[in-house]
C-alpha cells in the first residue's frame, strides 16, 4: 500500500507550504518593507469615533452555544452517514431500512428542537 501513503505526504506538503506563505510574507519579508510608528491614538480600538469604553470581552448571548450544540449533534450524525453512503451499493435494502431508522431518530431530534423554539434567532 505504498502509493496510498504518498497522497497523505502530499497533504503534509500543502500544510507546510500553506504555513510558509503567511509566515514568510508577514514575519520575514513584511517588516523590511512596511513602516512602523505606533502612536497611542493609532492603537486605540475603533468604536465609530468615540472613546472606547469598557472591555469588549463581554458575555454573549446563550443562543450561540445552543447553535454550537445543535451543530455538534447534527454534524456528527451527518458524518456517520458518509461510510454508509459509500457502502450502500453492497448493503441494499437492509442498509436502506437501517438508515431510515437512523434518519427518523435524527428527525425526531430536529422536531424536538423546533418545538422548543431553539431554532429561532430572537
Amino acid at each position: 500500500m505504498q502509493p496510498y501513503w504518498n497522497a497523505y505526504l502530499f497533504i503534509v506538503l500543502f500544510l507546510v507550504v500553506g504555513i510558509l506563505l503567511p509566515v514568510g510574507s508577514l514575519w520575514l519579508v513584511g517588516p523590511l518593507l512596511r513602516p512602523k510608528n505606533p502612536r497611542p491614538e493609532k492603537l486605540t480600538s475603533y468604536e465609530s469615533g468615540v472613546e472606547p469604553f469598557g472591555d469588549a470581552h463581554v458575555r454573549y448571548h446563550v443562543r450561540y452555544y445552543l447553535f454550537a450544540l445543535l451543530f455538534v449533534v447534527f454534524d456528527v450524525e451527518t458524518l456517520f452517514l458518509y461510510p454508509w453512503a459509500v457502502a450502500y451499493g453492497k448493503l441494499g435494502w437492509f442498509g436502506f431500512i437501517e438508515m431510515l431508522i437512523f434518519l427518523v431518530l435524527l428527525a425526531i431530534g430536529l422536531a424536538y428542537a423546533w418545538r422548543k423554539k431553539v431554532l429561532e434567532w430572537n
Partner: protein
Amino acid sequence: MWQWQTQPLTWSTFLAMLIGTVVILLLALGVVTYGILAERKVLGWMQGRIGPNRVGPFGLLQTVADVLKLFIKEDVVPAAADRPLFLLAPVLAFVPAFMALAVIPFSMQHIFTAGIGTGLLYYLALSALTIHGVMLGGWASNNKYSLIGGMRSAAQMLSYEVPLGLSLVGVALLAGSLNLNDVVRAQQHLGLWFIIPQFLGFCVFIVAATAELNRTPFDLPEAESELVAGYHTEYSGFRWAFFMLTEYVYLFAMAGLTATLFLGGWSGPWLPGWLWFALKAAAFFFFQFWLRNTMPRIRADQLMTLCWKVLLPLGLVNLVLTAVLKAVLLKG
C-alpha cells in the same frame, strides 16, 4: 515523475509533489487576483459602470497594485488586542482554506493534488476549520464590532456546515466513493452530471455554500451598515489581506468542489479536461458575482430559520429519495 499516486516514494516523486504544491499555490493566488478583478468588472458592468480600467491594459494590473499597496502598509496591532492570537488568526484562517485545495482534481489524474480515498470528508473537515481563524480574529481584536462579527460568522458557518455536509451525502451515495476523482468517473460512467439526479441536493448545496462563503445574500458577518467590517474591523495592511485571500481561496475551493461533484469536473467532449474544469469553476464564480449584484442581505433571524427549518429537512428528504433511486437503479 508525475505518477506518484502509483509509484513508491523516491526523491524524484517527492520533488514532483513539491512542485505540484507550489503550482497549486501560484494557481490559487492567480485565481484570487483575477477573481477579484473579474468580480469588480462584472459588478461594474451589471451596474452600467466600466469597472477598474486604469492600472495596466483594461485594468488587468489593478489587483496586483492593490496587493503591493497592502504589502507596504503599516501593520497596526491595537493596544487592547490579545497580541499573539491577533497575529495568528489570519494564518489560522488561511492555512485550512489552502489545504482544502489539496484534494480537488483539476485534471484527469491527480497531477498536482492528492487523490486520497477520503477526499470529500477531508474537504468538509478543513473547510470547517477556517471558522477558528475568523472567530479568534474577532475575539482577539478586543473590539465590540469584531466580537459580534466573529460570533455571527461562527454561528452562521457552523449552522450551514450541516446542510452542506448532508447535501453531499447524496453525491457520495450515487458515486459510491469519497475520492473526488472517482466521483467524476462515476458521472462519466452514468453519462449524466450529478446536478440532474441530485437537483434538490444541488439546490441545498448551493445555498449552503453561499452562506459558508459569507457572500451576499448571507454576508451578515460583514454587514457594513451595522458592524463596520465585522471580524476584521481592527485588521490592517497585509494581515487584513490574508483574511481577504482566505475568503477568495475558499471561494475557489468551493467552485472546484461544485464543478467536481455536480458539474462533471474535468469530463467533457473535445476540449482538454483542465479547460472544462476551468470553465465550470468560472461559471460558479460568475454565479456568485451575479448573486452579489442581485440579492439584498437577509435578516439574521431569517438566516437561521432558513438553515435549520428549510435546508436541513430538505437535505434529509433528498438523502432518502437518493437512496431509493439508487436501490431501484441497482435492481433494474
